């Protein structure tokens, strides 16, 4: 039973991580690639972490050793830190890219560029 649950969680995580890597080929520019790379990786890593927590929890109940409790704590802390740094990093890369004059490919609308042009800032 535990084996089945952990296996399914790892497979789901692996599926999203693969799609994240695949999106680097499929998408045209830095912004859309960021969507694929950071987002699919978040969901993939979340499920891998859930697998770690589920496995440790079952071992903790089965054997009652404290070191499995440590796994759960570290998994939870890693997930929390990942959620914060992933969002911050993606935002920092996107903002730096736009400021250094890389505009989204195939964009139907770009309100940020309109604003910067109105201020007399960067031009294409």
């Amino acid at each position: 039973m535990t084996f089945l649950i952990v296996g399914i969680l790892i497979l789901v995580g692996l599926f999203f991580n693969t799609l994240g890597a695949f999106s680097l080929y499929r998408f045209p520019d830095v912004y859309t690639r960021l969507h694929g790379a950071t987002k699919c990786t978040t969901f993939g890593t979340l499920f891998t972490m859930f697998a770690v927590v589920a496995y440790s929890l079952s071992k903790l109940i089965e054997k009652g050793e404290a070191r499995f409790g440590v796994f759960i704590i570290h998994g939870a802390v890693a997930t929390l830190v990942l959620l914060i740094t992933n969002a911050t990093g993606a935002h920092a890369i996107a903002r730096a890219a736009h400021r250094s004059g890389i505009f989204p490919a195939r964009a139907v609308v770009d309100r940020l560029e309109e604003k910067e042009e109105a201020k007399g800032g960067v031009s294409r």
Partner: protein
Amino acid sequence: MFIFVVSFLMYLLLVWSGGGIPLIEVLIALILASVTMAAFRSWHKGRKISMRGLDPKRWFGFIYYLFGPFAVGLAKANIDVAVRVITGNIRPGIIKVDPGLTSDLAKTMLADSITLTPGTLTVDVDEEGAFYIHWIYVEDENPSEEQVYGSFGHWARRLAE
């Protein structure tokens, strides 16, 4: 003081490996927590941490938000972007949304929620508090809040404003 206690406990939590904690680790924790507190004080001179953040109602609200509306939004958007990776059906663009938030914490929370949700990415936040969001499939060039990020704006106003 708050920073000192949090970093001290965090260090002990991370070095704890099932048994007792040796005295040397407690000493290292004290030193590192002091360094962290001193660094924080010199970077943010005269900045007070508001005690409103310790209200347990907000904590429960935040945990409910994390596992309720946010998790649902994350799952939906992940599947949506997974389909777009396979089919290649995208219509990207940067749109402007004004959620009308004033506090830094609320802005940070909303921007992080938006960035973590696949398909939307906060590129910039200007002085007036307007968000510039890169959207992978632009449905409307002047969208409403709900169209872009659902109920996240409502929750940011309720929990962090």
